């Protein structure tokens, strides 16, 4: 591997946080390495443990139709090892994987062909290709040492070991006894430098099962997927993180490898480490293990598609065999943009706690719903502010929807009381303190903000921006954004209760009558 001469500490910035009331001091130390990798560290010796997050600035929003689900599938694949981990003989695996790749292409083509209405063949070719792939997979298993990375972490006390993918980012986390930090550095740098996507096609099936579990057989999963698909017509928040079912059948190892090369480079990573460590030792360790990994030669591809303004209400019905659910969303600004923080305050006013407006009105007083939740996020691209509710029988979804609009209209007309605003401000202050309690919680917040804004201390700036929100801001933002035209509404309904068929039939009848 080409050696890159490391620049000496480029940025070394100890910062002390001073919260006004509670005097919380928190030293966050940062360092950017010459290959672009950004490090955020908090030294903390509450227990001899340490929590690490490797955050990649890539998520499902970076995909495109045809390969949806790739960011998440890649996250699964990065647990499959490298030439050093997870194999007794990598060289012997290479030709087998190449053969499997070729057969997988043929198999997929054969399956697609068989679905054509004009197809007259039988399944013999598909079955034969499946058998050939299975036998090659069996042969490769002779060399594979299964889940060695995972096993090694666990053997060494790894806790909270996992990874996750969202629209905006992908992260790998683990906590270890603090004397084992070097093991982490070895394994993480190894899989970043040289991952081997072995066992790709069986893992693709695993992810398909994950989709069945979380989306196809889950009431909120079904509703959420269709909500986003309606709310976003152009932007990539349109599709689910897990990917469309048909893409999970046709995405190949090559596609996911390409995705890796485009996005998984040191210049697209934030590492956050919180625990019983010494900052200077951490910098040296990361330099030693990650310092030689070259940055990407091509710039990381930006997401350029912008969601056009919504010009009218969109309504979606989702048929599913479960009791009704409701989601309403309005497009809102991205994290860091003007007014984003106002939405955070609105969500607290509406649904945080038993004094919140929607809870008080819909759950306690009118008893129309068992739960109501408003949610606003700090996202890379403009997302939606959503309200979800679970109606309480015999009340209908329509009643719940109207009651939500009434509360929003009331808040928009009168604004919040000073007591309500101060309640939310106090809660936000306390949230900040509580967010620092666990090492992993702190590492996550720091990595997330550093990745989204390039500056972890935006956490503090955001806290200040939220504190400065006024009743006037609330009224203005509600009037500007919470309009009918900017709104998407999704209903989950039982098939027998969905009367849209009846409406179509009626329409047809009336058309025919008109034709007469």
């Amino acid at each position, binding site marked *: 591997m080409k050696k890159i001469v490391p620049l000496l500490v480029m940025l070394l910035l100890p910062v002390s946080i001073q919260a006004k009331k*509670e005097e919380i001091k928190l030293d966050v130390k940062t360092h950017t390495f010459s290959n672009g990798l950004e490090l955020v560290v908090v030294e903390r010796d509450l*227990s*001899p*443990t340490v929590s690490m997050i490797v955050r990649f600035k890539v998520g499902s929003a970076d995909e495109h139709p045809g390969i949806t689900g790739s960011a*998440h599938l890649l*996250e699964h694949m990065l*647990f499959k*090892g490298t030439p*050093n*981990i997870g194999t007794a003989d990598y060289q012997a695996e290479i030709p087998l994987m190449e053969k499997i790749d070729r057969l997988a292409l043929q198999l997929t083509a054969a399956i697609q062909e068989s679905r054509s209405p004009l197809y007259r063949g039988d399944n013999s070719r598909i079955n034969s290709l499946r058998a050939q792939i299975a036998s090659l997979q069996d042969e490769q298993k002779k060399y594979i*040492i*299964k889940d060695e990375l995972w096993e*090694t972490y*666990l*053997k060494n*006390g*790894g806790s*909270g*070991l*996992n*990874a*996750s*993918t969202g*629209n905006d980012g992908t992260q790998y986390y683990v906590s270890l*006894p603090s*004397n084992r930090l*070097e*093991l982490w550095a*070895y394994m993480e740098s190894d899989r970043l430098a040289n991952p081997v996507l072995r*066992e790709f096609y*069986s893992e*693709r099936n*695993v992810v398909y*099962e*994950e989709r*069945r579990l979380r989306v196809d*057989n*889950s*009431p909120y*999963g079904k509703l959420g997927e269709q909500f*986003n698909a309606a709310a976003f017509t152009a932007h990539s928040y349109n599709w*689910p*993180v897990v990917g469309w079912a048909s893409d999970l059948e046709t995405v190949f190892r090559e596609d996911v490898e390409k995705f890796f090369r485009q996005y998984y480079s040191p210049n697209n990573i934030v590492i956050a480490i919180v625990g019983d460590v010494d900052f200077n030792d951490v910098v040296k360790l990361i330099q030693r293990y990650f310092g030689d990994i070259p940055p990407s030669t091509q710039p990381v591809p930006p997401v350029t598609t912008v969601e056009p303004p919504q010009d009218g209400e969109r309504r979606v019905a989702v048929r599913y*065999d*479960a*009791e009704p659910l409701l989601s309403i969303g309005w497009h809102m600004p991205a994290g860091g943009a003007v007014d984003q923080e106002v939405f955070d305050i609105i969500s607290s006013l509406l649904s*945080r706690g038993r*004094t919140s407006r929607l809870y008080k009105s819909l759950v*306690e007083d009118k008893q129309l719903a068992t739960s109501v939740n408003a*949610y606003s996020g700090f*996202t890379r691209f403009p*997302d*939606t502010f*959503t309200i979800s509710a*679970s109606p309480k029988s015999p009340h209908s979804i329509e009643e719940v929807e109207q009651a939500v609009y009434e509360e929003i209209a009331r808040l928009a007309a009168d604004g919040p009381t000073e007591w309500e605003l101060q*309640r939310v401000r*106090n*809660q936000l202050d306390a949230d900040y*303190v509580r967010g620092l*309690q666990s090492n992993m919680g702190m590492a996550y917040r720091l990595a997330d903000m550093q990745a989204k804004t390039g500056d972890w201390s935006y956490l503090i700036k955001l806290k200040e921006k939220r504190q400065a929100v006024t009743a006037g801001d609330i009224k203005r933002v509600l009037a500007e954004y919470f309009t009918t035209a900017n709104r998407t509404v999704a209903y989950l309904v039982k098939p027998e209760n969905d009367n849209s068929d009846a409406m179509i039939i009626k329409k047809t009848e009336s058309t025919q009558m008109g034709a007469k």
Partner: protein
Amino acid sequence: MKRITLTLITALLLFAISGLDAQERKSPGSNVIAGLVYPELEWKVPEVGKEVTRTVLKNGLILYLMEDRELPLISANAIIKTGSIYDSKERMAVADIAGSVMRSGGTKSYSPDSLNSILEFIAASVESGIGQESGSVSMSVLAKDLDLGLKIFYEVLRYPAFDTSKISLEKSQIKEGIRRRNDHPGSIVSREFDRLLYGDHPYGRVLEWDYVKDIGRDDLTAYHAKYFHPDNIMIAFAGDFDSKKLIKKIENIFGAWEKSPVDFPPLPAVALDYKPGIFIINKEITQANIRVGHFGIKRDNPDKYAISLMNFILGGGSFTSRLTSRVRSDEGLAYSVRSVFSTGSRDYGLFYAFTQTKTSTAHRALEIFFEEFDKIRRDPPSVAEFETARDSYINNFIFQFDSPGEVVSRLMSLEYDDYPLDYYQKYLENIRSVTLDDIKRVAEKYLDPDSMSILIVADTSKFEKQDFTDFGNVIYAALKDPKID
């Protein structure tokens, strides 16, 4: 829309292990890892009398305290010896509703609304609940608000008002929950599996609207009066306080509460009534939800350490446990595969393995399950498998004590559950004393494939192989709509 973040595994599993076979295959990386040198870790399990203070007030209230001055926060967790287990099936909801309305229904000095307003304005929380075998009231406050928080905490414990409007709200919330209980396949399978094995024993019974609808305020006040006495309560405090000063404050507030012994009703014992066979419930979904298992052990069983390691190797250790390795990794049949062997249950707990797979492969997944049950009973595990399981338990142990709140709650729970007080001091020794042969021994003794119950919730019309009789007697059961009025 709130974005769903997908994780690699369903929950934060503590443990996992690899199925490295006995064959001596090694990766190049394993040699590098073997060469890493780790400095000694200086750490001991926190102890009462050292990091943790335990004290008993004159009225019998037991306190555990651990100071943690890093952040200006204080938390408290009270555990009350009570639970729905002491009641008949028809009365099972009383504990549940009393647990919720103790807090939501206000107190002697605070109406429900004022309680909500005061707590939310100071960004604090006091919450309550009563489960099957214990009750809890928790508090979280900023240190500056300790006095107010303590006063409310005390009132919720001692003087709940059980406002009638909040009782009817809670009942209607429960009713809607019952109405929706068949919406999620996963909850159907776990509920029906418990019901199948435990029958009418509290561990298996299912809440019905009939048991809820007539409960009134008198039921709740009587329930509270029966169990809520200081000598029946323990409280664990952690956070930014001086222990001596805090004990004084607590004495001032709680001291006037007089002790009064509780006359506990007898506990029903679990009848080990095995139900071998296959029980299939039809629901139009695209995955078969499968659960397989039988009765396990009580928590005082000395084999529990060996059983934990055995289950880790079988299916408890997530990724590289045998079940996950074969069902998920080898064959790509499922996202979530696991086995659970409960070792903390007072009466007999359960062993079960579960997965969800596309309907057509349900039969195949079950085949693998039973092959692995047989294998772990037949052969001892490889040395590598055994060591991974053992080392995972040993090295992960520290994370059970990585926050002061967790330390005090764990130590208090030992006392509540009648464990020996040096349980955690001896824990590692107990894990280390498990041998390779113990794994096979406990697998043979505590796993009995012939007496296992198999429960499947699936769209039966989509089974590829319709015939499940190779696993036992097949019984089709209908999923009943819950009865509400």
